[in-house]
């Protein structure tokens, strides 16, 4: 039986996780599976340790980031948050996305770093608030429909954040 990412790090399958525990248990696995420990091991053992190290790395990256953790947690509940045939989002959220995108576009054209930075902090605050919502939907209410919609929003926000950061880097 293969372990899921949470089981691998001895974590409860929740949105709110102890990042310290995640970090510690990840380091532990990485050191146990380190190639230096398997110099004299059999080929099978070498392969197994390499596979474990790869799995741990993938699991750690997935659980460390709130949006990918939420997406993964939904998968454990049989829900695909980014199903391509589902393009409907709350209209007010999409309108706001458009506005943010327009601000980003205008500010980039105008080489206006302070507006970009203000927009970035607004987005980061928005992301924080969505993460608070996610721990409510996932951990307290077990409401996976709302968790899915909030996850989709967070993925959008993360994308805008990345694009703003990129625009700032280009101007710097």
């Amino acid at each position, binding site marked *: 039986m293969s372990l899921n990412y949470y089981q691998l790090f001895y974590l409860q399958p929740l949105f709110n996780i102890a990042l310290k525990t995640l970090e510690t248990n990840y380091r532990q696995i990485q050191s146990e599976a380190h190639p230096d420990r398997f110099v004299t091991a059999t080929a099978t053992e070498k392969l197994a340790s390499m596979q474990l190290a790869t799995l741990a790395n993938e699991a750690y990256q997935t659980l460390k980031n709130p949006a990918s953790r939420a997406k993964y947690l939904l998968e454990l509940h049989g829900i695909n*948050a*980014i199903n*391509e*045939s589902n*393009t*409907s*989002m709350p*209209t007010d*959220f*999409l*309108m706001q*996305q*458009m506005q943010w*995108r327009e601000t980003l576009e205008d500010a980039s054209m105008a080489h206006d770093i302070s507006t970009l930075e203000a927009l970035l902090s607004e987005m980061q605050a928005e992301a924080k608030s969505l993460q608070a919502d996610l721990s409510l939907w996932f951990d307290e209410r077990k409401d996976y429909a709302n968790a899915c919609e909030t*996850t*989709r*929003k967070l*993925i*959008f926000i*993360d*994308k*805008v954040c990345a*694009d703003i950061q990129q625009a700032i880097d280009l101007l710097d």
Partner: protein
Amino acid sequence: MAYSDKVLDHYENPRNVGTLDKNDPNVGTGMVGAPACGDVMKLMIKVNDDGIIEDAKFKTYGCGSAIASSSLVTEWLKGKTIDEAYAIKNSAIAEELALPPVKIHCSVLAEDAIKAAVADIKAKKQLLVDSE
């Protein structure tokens, strides 16, 4: 990944970019989004009393294929009835633009934007009929 010539053409010279007056009772708006890549698409159609689409405008934030898909459909929509518009399939968009499999979702987004805009104008006109 290489884009087809048609995608590049629409991407470099997008047709009908802009907005229509959303308060116009003859204008329907469709907003859709794809979290997988963070694309947002707004499609607006202006429909006359015979149910014919007279004008269409779009605004899309996304990759080249998403922009090309929405640009293409605004060209297709003009002159069509709203029922014909509703029947447009993403596969036709994908075929016309020669979209690779990983970009098929961009054509899905465009199809859904049309459906949302048609639903919006139908709801708007229905409301008008009801209030008369």
